[in-house]
């Protein structure tokens, strides 16, 4: 699957997996800490709120330790992904993050129009006419299906207010 020789490098699978495992273990530690705060012993009404999650947290940390050990033992030099591939992934994650972040202020419709247009224009290199047709068409169809037929309200911003939708 490796085509371009320039993009054949990337983080190794071993390294990234170890990182993920450590993050999971950290999550386990947070769960344990939170459970201790809620109380893990027996109260008047039986086991207290932190009782069950405390052991869950222990399980997370313990299984992560095994996973870390197993992960570090095998060394096949496999890449997690090439840098070029990760760039592709980030080219979706970053705009989506902006889209999601803008939604409370602009409403869903306006944000969607810009998001779809950006995606099609920059990643798909489509002519502007196609871009506009899809970017405007999809939110309009969504409006009718969700708000009109199924009566599910979606987030709106100043533009929708101005249009009185």
């Amino acid at each position, binding site marked *: 699957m490796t085509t371009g020789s320039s993009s054949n490098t990337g983080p190794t699978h071993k390294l990234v997996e170890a990182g*993920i495992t450590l993050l999971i273990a950290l999550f386990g530690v947070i769960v344990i800490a939170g459970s201790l705060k809620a109380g893990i012993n027996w109260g008047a009404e039986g086991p207290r709120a932190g009782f069950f*999650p405390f052991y869950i947290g222990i399980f*997370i940390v313990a299984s992560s330790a095994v996973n870390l050990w197993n992960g570090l033992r095998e060394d096949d030099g496999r890449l997690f992904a090439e840098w070029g*591939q990760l760039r592709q992934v980030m080219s979706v994650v970053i705009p989506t993050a902006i889209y999601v972040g803008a*939604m409370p202020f602009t409403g869903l419709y306006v944000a969607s129009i810009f998001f779809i247009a950006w995606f*099609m224009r920059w990643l798909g290199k489509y002519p502007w006419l196609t871009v506009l047709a*899809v970017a405007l068409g999809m939110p309009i169809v969504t409006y009718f299906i969700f708000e009109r037929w199924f009566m599910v309200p979606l987030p709106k911003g100043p533009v929708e207010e101005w249009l009185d939708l």
Partner: protein
Amino acid sequence: MEELVNLFHGFAVALQPFNIMVMVVGIVLGVLIGVLPGLGGANGVAILLPLTFSMSPTSAIIMLSCIYWGALFGGAITSILFNIPGEPWSVATTFDGYPMAQKGKAGEALTAAFTSSFVGALFAVVMITLVAPLVASFALQFGPAEKFAVYFLAFCSFVGLSKEPPFKTIAAMMIGFALAAVGLDSITGQLRLTFGMTHLLNGFDFLIAVIGLFGIGEILLTMEEGLAFRGGNAKINLRVVLQTWKELPAYWITSLRSCLIGCWMGVTPAGATPASFMSYGIAKRVAKKGNNFGKGEIEGVVAPETAAHAAGTAALLPMLSLGVPGSPTAAVLLGGLLIWGLQPGPMLFVEQKEFVWGLIASMYLGNIVGLLVVLTCVPVFAAILRVPFSIIAPLILVLCAIGAYSVHSSTFDVVLMLVFGVIGYLLKKANYPLAPLVLAIVLGDKAEEAFRQSLLGSQGSLGIFFSNTLVSSIMVLGLIALFWSAIQQGYTRLRGATA
């Protein structure tokens, strides 16, 4: 036969014009979901769940379950025509389906796949009809300890049967349990694990997790691979269909075996994906033309498709009768029941007869409708696949956002969805299974409640889980499932030593 009467009542419910319409809409949407990358059964149903809030629960579950059947059918289309499994359970279908299509036998392969799917589903539905009421009436006697034992068995089967490393399965599952525990504790009413964040008061909704983990995560994986669709044309006409149907009965043993594998794997929450691989593997070993498998053998399409569909359908049996879903999609359906105000589990068969039997009847009808829809509309669905990913991807992302928002009308949930998406991508790449994580979020509160109530009854002694024959046998089954791969390894080593 009280069940038969109930089933006929169910058919009367399912055959109402509105429900028939809902069924067709569900199937078409489902096939679309199955065909499109990034939209799977579980998150497709999750996204569309809010649309059903205004419907009656029976119509709602008919629509959502039909989306599920449609997705099961749809996965085969992409596997055969494009060598791209639309769903994980159709990976095994590509082994022989795609070579058949390359030989110009796409029509035969598709017909065989759809027909096998139908047979598998029908077998599983008949089993549900016969077995589910019995299981439910049996389960009515369960106390908290037995309930916990059933959850224990379900989660242990995941560890023992999944192809991912067992400790990764355990880690994924426990993350799910931890996420389920966040927020208000249902027994003491105390807040926990919120760390003062008001957004976390109500905990994590599993629908958001499903949409993020499966939907966004899948899109990111697809982006990384830089998918381009290249595929043969779908020509399917009546002559090809009839000709293939004449051929298929010869493979009845394979069919029956795959049905049984599927049902077994579906009821224990191993799910459709391992069922299809296992069925394919066994068929390859047993079949006369086993050496030709992988080069375009029709039997190699029949085996995985039958098993996948049987498993997908059978996954609803424990969901309906015990309240323990057998697959992520069944888990989403179970979440739907809770939202519509129904309590899944054995009481459903007593209190909500119309709902349960309407659903079961709709499974028969939905699969017939599904078979007709896919056989007649394959070219249309194949054409949709030719729409480039750079158009499909943003539309799916927007749909995911809409789905995530409309669960609680909260934009914070949309942010969470993206976070879950990135987590899903990383976990999937690092070989962590996502299904147990989602199931644990769904069942976490119930499992914990059963566990704590049992301990209350026994004053904290774990002996309660081995206090009578019923509960101890379920627990022992669970332990066997938990150590299944170790037991298997030991057995092979033992045999190797004696031979």
